[in-house]
């Protein structure tokens, strides 16, 4: 069985899609039922991939919006068990390839093998674990994931050195996620200049076929537009969480639609 992400990504490329969208969602926030409605709205609006974050008590890379969402979900007794059930539901109920994002402690405590086994079984495409940085030894981690047919998406940032980028490019699987700022998650009015000028360096360091995703701070159609031709996938996070909580799943759909149409036009 080929990974769903690979299939969809090559198809979109083949179609000549200028940029694809990965929509972020926080499990259990504000509730599982809203999660499901939101996923539906995202897909309808044209999102390509779903990044589903499992809440953790200490989400080190997350800004206020997502961090508070994490805490809220945990306070409402969101558990790993409920998380797995949600993933399963979403994996079967819609067609966007799913990346599960979480912090390392959750799979680590649950048991890495067991954890990844479950994800593989329900058809998840990969995992994003921001607190496993790239290291000589993380090769092992990437290999383990591929044994599970899961992509281990690595995260880089504008500060990552060319030397390191090269090494990462060699090992990376699925896509590499570059943050648009040296910072934490959070919607911003404008994208960081630092972030937008880095892609040449990154592309040069990476093998051509490796997919490149970018996120952190995307909150407007223009932001996505600015990334066109520079990266393959735009990841929208805090903005969607805010929309979900403040204005509901339909607003999320509308927002994604507006992006999709701006891309097409």
């Amino acid at each position: 069985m080929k990974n769903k992400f690979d299939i969809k990504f090559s198809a979109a490329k083949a179609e000549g899609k200028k940029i694809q969208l990965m929509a972020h969602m926080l499990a259990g926030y504000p509730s599982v039922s809203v999660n499901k409605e939101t996923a539906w709205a995202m897909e309808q609006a044209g999102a390509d991939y779903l990044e589903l974050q499992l809440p953790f008590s200490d989400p080190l890379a997350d800004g206020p919006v997502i961090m508070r969402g994490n805490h809220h979900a945990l306070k409402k007794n969101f558990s790993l068990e409920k998380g797995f059930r949600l993933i399963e539901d979403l994996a079967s109920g819609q067609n966007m390839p799913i990346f599960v994002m979480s912090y390392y402690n959750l799979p680590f405590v649950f048991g890495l093998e067991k954890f990844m086994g479950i994800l593989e079984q329900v058809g998840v495409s990969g995992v994003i674990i921001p607190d496993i940085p790239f290291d000589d030894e993380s090769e092992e981690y990437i290999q383990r994931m591929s044994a599970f047919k899961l992509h281990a998406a690595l995260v880089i940032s504008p500060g990552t050195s060319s030397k390191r980028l090269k090494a990462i490019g060699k090992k990376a699987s699925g896509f590499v996620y570059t943050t648009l700022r040296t910072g934490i998650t959070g919607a911003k009015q404008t994208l960081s200049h630092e972030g937008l000028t880095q892609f040449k360096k990154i592309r040069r360091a990476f093998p051509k076929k490796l997919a490149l995703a970018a996120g952190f701070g995307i909150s407007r159609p223009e932001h996505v537009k600015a990334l066109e031709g520079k990266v393959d996938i735009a990841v929208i996070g805090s903005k969607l969480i805010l929309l979900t909580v403040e204005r509901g799943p339909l607003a999320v759909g509308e927002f994604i639609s507006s992006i999709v149409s701006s891309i097409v036009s």
Partner: protein
Amino acid sequence: MKKKTEVFRRNYLKKRCFGEFGGRYVPELLIQALDDLEACYLQAKTDSHFQRELKSVLQSYGGRPTPLLFAKNLSEELTELRESRKSSALRKQRKQPLKIYIKNEGILHTGAHKLNNVLGQALLCMRMGKRELVAETGAGQHGLAVASVAAKFKLAAKIFMGEEDYFRQYPNVYAMKNLGAKVIMVSDGTRRLKDAVNAAMKYWIENLKTTHYLLGSALGPFPYPLLVRDFQSVIGVEAKKQLKQAEGRLPDLLCACVGGGSNSLGFFTPFLSDAKVAMLGIEAGGKSMKLGEHASRMKEPKLGIVQGYKSYFIQNADGQVQPTHSISAGLDYPGIAPELAYLHQQGRVKFLSASDKEALEGFRKLSEKEGISPALECAHVIGKLPVIIQRYPEASFICVNISGRGDKDIFITAKHLDKDAWREFLKRELRSLR
């Protein structure tokens, strides 16, 4: 399948760990900064100019060396206690007098061992050409040290503090503000030390080029556990010399309280290779052993990876870090120094916990017996001594690290020990403010 995981565990982060503990589990974007810090520290470590400068500020600013004191009255009381417990047959044997010494870090400027690490890291910060310090604080002792040293070295300082701590330790907030530091209240999560760490790290992530994150205990991602331990080792280095001088030999047992683990590691490290010196860490037993009512990570150690390092954490089955409780704000952190986890695994350092009640008892005991009011953190050790001497019947020469002085805890201890008069005092102060 099991085996594969183990290989993975063993290999991942081959270096930068103590056995399986430690590591640097952080977002990629921190790696460069951690590398820079590590390189800077490793250089500084062998740079005699740096070491001289550190020694000089530890002395002229900090007030080092701190004294070692024979706690004569406490020793006598505990000797009697131990005698009284002996069976009558044993009691006829020669009486073995207990000798308890205290290493008094409470003498240090700003009142606790925290300063040792802060001075070291502040020098590193300047060595890296950075002019801003960011730090977390719980009880406010680390923050106070950071704020003071920042003032002295003309560095900007941002101190993150959980909302709970901000209000209950307001006197330290006030002191930090006076020193020119900016104190930022953190209202997320448990609104305590752990969340202040998260907030400080995030601020750091957003300002890597100009700021140094001055972590306050021997934990977090590498190289923090290493350098904090090293900077605190001055405690043990001095104590070893002083103890030898006092008794002509090394002690049988060292005891220290364990929050993050910096004072204990600093105290223990220079003795690690002395096999005959036993070591005991005392954690916060809080109100009970129920989850949420204590901060003892070693009672049922649960391995985890949180805030950048692998160690034991107080967490639930899902790996979610859980709230803790301790009467002392410096011991209620849910994680523990990876090196201590390792030393525990190796059996080199043992652990016990002392309850809030024992801590208060320890506070009173050292005050009454030796005229030294300890910080509630190390008061846990004093309060536990009656049990400790029973667990270590062979130990007759014991040294306790007093990590700080008790002034800072007045709002907590007075509430317990002198409630009515304290209430009247506060009322009077309030009236005078109108």
